């Protein structure tokens, strides 16, 4: 095992190198460009035996990955914000075609107006395309999750997206353990799909499927997605055995006796730990739940994690206009049949890269403690007058 000081983008590159991706296609966009710059270098100098192509758009990047994956090769791309949105058509396509591509998305705000900073609306607006979605808290988790994502994606034949916050992770350097190639090989076997483009066994892909067959194909995707939760759980367990690190799909922190449970994802979870520790030191019973896997939505572990709480506070760095925080609405749907569902305080904060500081989170917790019930479905944090 090697330890390097890596920014989030390069943690991804190393994970892709260790995962032995065979085809990498990408188009530059801030703040994800660094991911493929290092990969381009690795492909050029032979550290990674892969073909790299700097294509003409993100739509083409994912289309190229789709072509490569369809031939039975491991494909990778990285993007952010408008780049991900421009891939939208191909995102759907890769799911329908059951291509287990891994994509790293640096969560960045969407225009108009232009903004390059952290915000989860880019990937969360792609929620219903059928990609697995992971959200990461630190650069080690980013690296480990990319490797796990290949394992899970290739088992369930669905593509996976690994998301990390713009700049807070993508451009922040941290010590990261990089497993040795043979260790990753032992964890991640070569990609060997049952069906792929091959002259030895000719197949055609993507043909017309009318009303008599399309629905069954959709049902299978849904079943595969639901099954992915268990596969992801197993993949993380095995990862933990081999590498000594776990990344639970839903991570709990000091929740056992907690009256107030805070729910967060991405780098906000890291900051929230500090707030939980500070309040615990004062004897307050508060805890944290981190959503690491968002699709498939891990209903059972989430319910288990929050069900003892008297109140839940959830912070969303995203918004579904006219509805509220996207993770909050998922949480509400998980809890709606719960006989003793605690009140859910849904906070929206940090859009467009606005800092979510320990003070921001502490205010959220204080508000949740003070109020009997949330005064509105959605509470916007720190809005200027």
């Amino acid at each position, binding site marked *: 095992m090697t330890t390097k000081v890596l920014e989030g983008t390069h943690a991804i590159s190393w994970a892709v190198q260790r995962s032995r991706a065979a085809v990498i296609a990408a*188009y*530059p*966009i*801030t703040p994800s*460009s660094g991911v*493929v*710059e290092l990969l*381009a*270098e690795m492909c*050029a*100098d032979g550290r990674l035996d892969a073909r790299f192509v*700097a294509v*003409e*758009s*993100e739509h083409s990047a994912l289309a190229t990955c789709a072509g490569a994956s369809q031939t039975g090769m491991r494909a990778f791309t990285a993007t952010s914000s*408008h780049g991900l949105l*421009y891939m939208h058509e191909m995102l759907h396509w890769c799911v329908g075609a059951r291509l287990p591509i891994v994509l790293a998305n640096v969560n960045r705000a969407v*225009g108009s107006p*232009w903004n390059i900073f952290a915000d989860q609306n880019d990937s969360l607006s792609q929620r219903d395309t059928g990609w697995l979605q992971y959200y990461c808290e630190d650069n080690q988790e980013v690296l480990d999750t990319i490797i796990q994502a290949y394992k899970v994606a290739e088992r369930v034949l669905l593509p996976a997206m690994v998301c990390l916050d713009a700049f807070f992770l993508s451009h922040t350097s941290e010590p990261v353990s990089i497993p040795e190639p043979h260790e990753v090989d032992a964890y991640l076997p070569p990609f060997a799909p049952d069906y792929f483009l091959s002259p030895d066994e000719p197949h055609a892909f993507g043909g017309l499927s009318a009303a008599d067959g399309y629905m069954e194909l959709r049902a299978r995707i849904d079943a595969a997605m639901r099954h992915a939760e268990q596969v992801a759980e197993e993949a993380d367990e095995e990862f933990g055995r081999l590498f000594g690190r776990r990344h639970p799909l839903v991570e709990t922190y000091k929740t056992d006796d907690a009256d107030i449970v805070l729910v967060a994802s991405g780098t906000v979870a890291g900051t929230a730990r500090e707030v939980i520790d500070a309040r615990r030191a004062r004897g307050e019973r508060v805890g944290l739940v981190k959503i690491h896997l968002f699709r498939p939505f891990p209903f059972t572990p989430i319910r288990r994690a929050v069900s003892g709480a008297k109140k839940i506070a959830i912070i969303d760095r995203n918004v579904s206009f006219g509805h509220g925080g996207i993770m909050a609405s998922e949480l509400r749907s998980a809890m709606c049949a719960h006989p003793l569902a605690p009140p859910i305080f849904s906070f929206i904060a940090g859009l467009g890269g606005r800092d979510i500081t320990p003070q921001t989170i502490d205010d959220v917790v204080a508000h949740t403690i003070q109020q009997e019930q949330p005064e509105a479905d959605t509470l916007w944090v720190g809005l200027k007058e």
Partner: protein
Amino acid sequence: MTTTTVATPNDYKSDLKPIWCPGCGDYGVVQAIYRALAAVGRPPHEVAFVSGIGCSSRIPGYTTTYGFNTVHGRALPIAQGIKLARPELLVLVAGGDGDGFSIGGGHVPHAVRRNIDLTYVVMDNQIYGLTKGQLSPTSPRGLKTVSSAYGSVEDPVNPLMYVLGYGARFVAQGTPADLSGLASLIEAGLRYPGFAFINVQSPCITYGQPEAQLKAHKAAMKRLEPMGHDVTDRLAAMRLAAEYGEALYTGVFYRDPNPSPTYDAELVERRRAFGTLDRARALDRFVPH
């Protein structure tokens, strides 16, 4: 209604200070645009300036015209929408080589053949500057960049040859190394009735090649006008365009002497023709008696 006024380049200069690297060619391009707009004389509120994404696409903000910093690659369709809705506006479009010939490349032939009256200025620096130095569609083969550590293995797009091949009616190339020449090319494009394309060799001081900077341009540029090039000869223009990347020709490559009517003009004409029909009688045929 369109008006012309006696204007000076300063009338088109906004209070925003450009955010470009010192020595960037785009400073010269914006100066040339101020001059061209002043020469044409349409007041700023009758000009819409549309751009895509990239360093060069910051440019509308530095003018007093209506500005629209749009989505990467989509400047042309957005400009077409503006021109269709408000045909009386003078519509200027700008962007970089990535915007025009990579991600937005599919729009260029259609803007050419549709012939909506737009002037498209591409600031071609052969690199992605805003995202810090990756290969662009006009990067020369062999160029080492952060996305091509050991040199590009692809041929570049030839923007001049592309648009000439698509059938463009006005095609020119300039450099900010010759500011007054560039200003008059942009002015000619603005005055041209129909889609006009001006490729500007606008050097990137930070990530560009040393041999493609302003000083080198000044030494290398060859003006087409004194060479006796016939601007009405498309094939002659294409022969010159074929030297893109080797020779730096400046001036008008091609100007259609008998331009077909613009899309806007055709629409007006059609409407007039339909206006003479007896609508009531025509529709009457579909009413059951």
